[in-house]
């Protein structure tokens, strides 16, 4: 009797050997390579989608700071000033009054608007990527230009924009010989109506809004320059010189005293900001030193920093004058200091009796990038204002990131399904 097993063998035995293609090996090798390529592509796609999600999540923190909906009447200086990663550039410069401006480490011109603390990366026309300087009232921004300084005239200059109206003026920066030069330093007058710049041996003065610029060619390179509310420029040319409006530079005569000059003992000085009345100048140093430097009443003065705060000194970079006696500065303190790293401090100048000196750290989390701050946003310090010195702009409600996670997972699943489909298709 024939059983199923025997019958199956009879059926099978009747089958002639089936022809097999000669190129099976080559097809198999090609399929293997395609498979490997697909695996690599899938891995890359997954890594890319994960990275993309991470970038979205990573940008959340920056967005949080830039999207606060809270508005402070009259504006305020933020209590935290960070160096953001790349932001979406904005071509409309009329962003409103600003509290802070600086060149980010990523090469963007960053402006923090005063009312809401949001960050803006401005597309400044022909900006050379170097200097940005915010006026003390926060309404104007100046920057160094490498481009067209007049219709059809390429060169170097300074541009100033009104951040409220967006109106822009460009001032060429050139030496006495007419050659263009780059402004190395810019300093605003306390009243925001004057601006001085220096480059090489040339110092310039710009009355804001006039479209004019006035220059003076010195005998030596100018290290620092400052300007008061009368437009008088004080600059360092060996002994400090003063250049009044309508006059010629002469040895500095501060408070009626001719400066007793015995050479500049402060080679560390690389910038200055004039007090509103022009009788005191806060000087800037880039290396840690146990004192803040001033030029006042015909002499240089060192205003000692508290050793318990800064045992190894600190680099003090004045940003402006809140009053005739109070200076706001960006202080960079070395490790081991009471407040390490970059921060903002408000302290009395030595044009005040020492027993009245004060020192307040007003913002601890501050980028190392050189800042320009609208000091007029500091409240009156005569105890008549309840406003804090800086404002802690709150982060907006935490962004709902569930959709990002969902999107990432969906993308990964889609990639895997596509790979699987391709795989099966290629394998026939």
């Amino acid at each position, binding site marked *: 009797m024939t059983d199923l*097993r025997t019958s*199956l063998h009879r059926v099978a035995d009747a*089958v002639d050997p*089936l022809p*097999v*293609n000669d190129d*099976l090996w080559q097809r*198999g090798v090609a*399929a*293997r390579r395609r498979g490997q390529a697909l695996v690599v592509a899938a891995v890359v796609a997954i890594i890319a989608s994960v990275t993309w999600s991470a970038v979205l999540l990573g940008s959340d923190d920056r967005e949080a700071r830039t999207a606060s909906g809270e508005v402070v009447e009259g504006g305020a200086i933020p209590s935290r000033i960070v160096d953001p990663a790349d932001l979406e550039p904005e071509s409309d410069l009329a962003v409103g009054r600003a509290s802070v401006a600086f060149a980010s480490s990523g090469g963007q011109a960053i402006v923090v608007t005063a009312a809401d603390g949001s960050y803006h990366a401005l597309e400044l026309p022909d900006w050379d990527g170097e200097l940005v300087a915010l006026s003390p009232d926060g309404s104007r921004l100046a920057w160094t230009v490498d481009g067209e300084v007049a219709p059809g005239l390429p060169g170097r200059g300074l541009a100033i924009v009104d951040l409220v109206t967006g109106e822009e003026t460009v001032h060429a920066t050139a030496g006495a010989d007419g050659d263009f030069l780059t402004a190395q330093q810019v300093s605003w007058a306390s009243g925001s109506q004057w601006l001085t710049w220096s480059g090489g041996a040339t110092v310039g003065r710009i009355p804001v809004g006039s479209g004019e610029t006035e220059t003076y060619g010195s005998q030596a390179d100018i290290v620092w320059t400052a300007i008061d509310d009368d437009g008088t420029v004080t600059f360092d040319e060996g002994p400090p010189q003063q250049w009044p409006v309508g006059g010629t530079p002469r040895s500095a005569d501060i408070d009626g005293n001719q400066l007793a000059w015995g050479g500049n003992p402060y080679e560390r000085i690389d910038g200055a900001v004039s007090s509103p009345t022009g009788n005191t100048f806060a000087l800037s140093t880039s290396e840690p030193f146990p004192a803040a430097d001033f030029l006042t009443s015909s002499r240089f003065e060192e205003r000692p920093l508290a050793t318990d705060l800064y045992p190894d000194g600190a680099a003090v970079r004045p940003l402006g004058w809140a009053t005739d006696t109070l200076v706001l500065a960006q202080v960079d303190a070395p490790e081991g200091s009471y407040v390490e790293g970059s921060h903002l401090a408000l302290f009395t100048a030595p044009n005040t009796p020492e027993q009245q000196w004060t020192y307040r750290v007003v913002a601890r989390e501050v980028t190392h990038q050189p800042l320009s701050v609208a000091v007029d946003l500091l409240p009156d310090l005569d105890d008549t204002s309840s406003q804090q010195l800086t404002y802690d702009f709150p982060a907006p409600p935490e962004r709902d990131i569930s959709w990002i996670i969902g999107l990432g997972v969906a993308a990964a699943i889609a990639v895997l399904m596509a790979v699987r489909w391709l795989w099966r298709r290629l394998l026939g």
Partner: protein
Amino acid sequence: MTTSDETGFDEFVAARSAALSRTAYLLTGDHHLAQDLVQAALVQAVRHWRRIHTSPEAYVRRAMYHQNISWWRRRKIAESPLESYDGAVPPPDTDLRLTLDQALARLTPKQRTVLVLRFYEDLTEVETARALGLSTSTVKSTTRQSLARLRTLAPELAELIGADA
């Protein structure tokens, strides 16, 4: 350039393609499909040739089993459903081989594959389950259902089926 791997593969194909063809025909019931099945399994073997440390034939056969079921699933979606699925095979053929052939063609590939593995390849239920990635109880029930279906489709085969059932 011919490598030692390629030479070994060619030798394997030359030696075992006839046996593989027979199994492939039983699995598919169609010469063209059987040829495709053998070649697809061989291509898959090439892709993993260096990693096949045991028997290449066992690997190729296992690939054929799975490939056949996979193809059927796709054809099932693409093609129209079986007609008169449970109807008896028309006029009994005098040739028993052809009758069995026709009856097998009315089984699902899963049922057919289980029968081929159990009664042609002589695998045990455990080995069949392992080869197909099924549980042993599934193999048992599928075998039972397959034989019952053969009895329905080809009553004249009841005697030989009964001998194994």
